[in-house]
């Protein structure tokens, strides 16, 4: 019996992870690590988080079998883990409630967050409202346009939304700007990091807060007759994926597949598929992982129809799982994701987030490969309400496009 891969503590996952940050942030990260280590073993923290998960988020999230969708996926059995049904519409709330509770423990009164699709921003604004914290969300200007409704949502929840106009004006630049705010305001402010990336303790901590997805799903699968043959999730920074993978890491017969955003296709060079695209390792946003970069280590801008996957890095634990071969990472193009998006809408009456549609596209491909004997568990990480405009434009459903 080899050592368990579950709940790896960090800061390193093999060669990946660590803490590559300015000295100014070291004290805050140490303080956060310390607070988290204490909270982890404090039954009161566990109780409060479980209560919020049940009474606020609506956990456990159900699983839904998708037979009409599955008919297009080689007839394999396809089961959806419904994180889309969570309060605020995605898995992001699981992480944010944990980090907001920690913020209170740290005695800090303000939270900041970066957001791509706006789901993590909305979740952060929600948790801040619930717990009486001040909240500022940084969002790339490009994304504030792509996800205008989520900007309004965050404002309605009382958050300040700052459009970021530096660099590529997307998620990576929003993260840069959040770091800049943090360095300046670290005494009063906690950074609610939205994905399982960044400097230690974030990759391990965010994973721990998202582990519940896989813990529930594994039990739900056993109730329905046994472990799945594969678990599939989309990967931006990788929090929903690592959240659903973790409980299955030691089930060596269960294939784990992360679907990265293939954008316009790997060969086009316009994508966000860090691992599947064969990127080199480097340091970005505080940890060592695979990143899209040029020969000089300058970050290359990613491309994806999905704002939440449009990130040139990936969480270090995924880099590790890819490296040791425990998980596989596939690239799913914009077109494949949108086809899966439409298929789930039409066959099951479920409107998925475009991010999650990348996982659905992976399930179609895998189902066709494995056939009717296979069971595939899909992380439906979020709902697509925020994406209606993008999808309507993609499918040419808007009355007339203004140029």
């Amino acid at each position, binding site marked *: 019996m080899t050592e368990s891969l579950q709940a790896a503590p960090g800061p390193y996952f093999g060669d990946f992870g*660590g*803490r*590559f*940050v*300015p*000295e*100014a*942030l*070291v*004290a*805050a990260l140490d303080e956060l690590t310390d607070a988290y280590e204490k909270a982890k073993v404090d039954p009161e923290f566990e109780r409060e988080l479980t209560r919020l998960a049940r009474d606020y988020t609506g956990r456990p999230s159900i699983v839904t079998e998708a037979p009409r969708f599955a008919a297009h996926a080689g007839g394999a059995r396809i089961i959806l883990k419904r994180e889309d049904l969570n309060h605020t519409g995605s898995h992001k709330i699981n992480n944010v409630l944990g980090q907001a509770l920690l913020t209170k423990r740290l005695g800090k009164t303000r939270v900041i967050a970066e957001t791509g699709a706006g789901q993590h921003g909305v979740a952060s604004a929600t948790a801040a409202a619930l717990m009486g914290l001040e909240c500022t969300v940084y969002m790339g200007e490009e994304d504030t346009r792509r996800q205008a409704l989520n900007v309004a949502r965050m404002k309605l929840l009382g958050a300040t939304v700052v459009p970021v106009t*530096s*660099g590529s004006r997307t998620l*990576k*630049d929003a993260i*840069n700007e959040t*770091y*800049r705010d943090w*360095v*300046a*305001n*670290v*005494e009063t402010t906690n950074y609610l990091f939205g994905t399982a990336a960044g400097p230690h303790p974030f990759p391990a901590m965010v994973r721990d807060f998202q582990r519940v997805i896989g813990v529930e799903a594994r039990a739900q699968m056993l109730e329905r007759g046994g472990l799945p043959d594969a678990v599939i999730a989309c990967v931006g920074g990788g929090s929903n994926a690592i959240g659903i993978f973790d409980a299955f890491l030691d089930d060596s017969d269960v294939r784990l597949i992360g679907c990265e955003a293939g954008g316009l296709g790997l060969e086009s060079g316009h994508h966000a598929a860090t691992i599947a695209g064969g990127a*080199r390792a*480097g*340091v*970005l*946003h505080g940890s060592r992982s695979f*990143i899209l*970069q040029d*020969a*000089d*280590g*300058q*970050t290359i801008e990613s491309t994806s129809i999905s704002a939440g996957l449009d990130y040139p890095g990936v969480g270090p634990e995924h880099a590790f799982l890819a490296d040791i071969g425990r998980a596989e990472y596939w690239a799913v193009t914009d077109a494949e994701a949108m086809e899966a998006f439409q298929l789930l809408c039409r066959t099951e009456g479920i409107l998925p987030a475009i991010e999650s549609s990348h996982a659905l596209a992976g399930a179609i491909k895998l189902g066709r490969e494995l056939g009717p004997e296979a069971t595939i568990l899909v992380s439906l990480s979020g709902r697509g309400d925020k994406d209606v405009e993008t999808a309507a434009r993609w499918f040419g459903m808007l009355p007339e496009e203004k140029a």
Partner: protein
Amino acid sequence: MTFLTDRLDAARAQGRAALIGYLPVGYPDVERSARAMVAMVEAGVDIVEVGVPYSDPVLDGATIQQAAEAALQRGVRVRDAFTAVKAVVDAGAPAVVMSYANPIFQYGVERFADDLVAAGGSGVILPDLTPDVAGEWLAAASARGLETIFLVAPSSTQERLHYTVAHTTGFVYAASLMGVTGERASVGAAAEQLVADTRAAGAERVCVGLGVTTGEHARMVGAYADGVIVGSALVRCLLEHEDEDDALAALRVKVAELADGVRSAR
């Protein structure tokens, strides 16, 4: 003893702080940025920090971001830093390269150190790397006699101050405030205490940067620090003047103001 520490100690012998000027290589282009660095030396900067533009500069404010972004758009490469270093050293001043970690890692730490030595550079300043994760670089640097300058911040604990000082050579860079680069109306009140604490933790030389904008700031900081580091206020001279002669004239005026400041401090 290196060119860098000699220069700091020479300023100290004159009863003043050294003036350290930062400019990013490649803005507005490589040759002009090198000429601007030389102009700074001629106008009274003691030491030049050659900045390597980076796509994700989390410790830089709007001014340096703007110059770095423009430099990258125009195709500046990491290796261009060595061209600028050589120009500075030929003009008679020590040069240190300020770079975020990933460009150095991707260039290859050994190769970077070799090329820096070949260009006559004295060492590096690493704004987003702490000694905890800099082992590979530190080995390459010390094998070649290069200085490695780490930062301390007002948030650094006593333990961190001791740790950072123990791994730093050349000088310790004390961040005057919690924040990013950029011009400020005043220099952070925490700076003087941080310098004292850093010295108490064993640092021989402590220079202060972030927010130093005017001759008056340079005078105030020069009263207690071994060096005064100025970036954004100098970069702005280049951003505001497209014409090279105008830009260099503005730069010389600014450097003269700052050089007067460090000379009237004590």
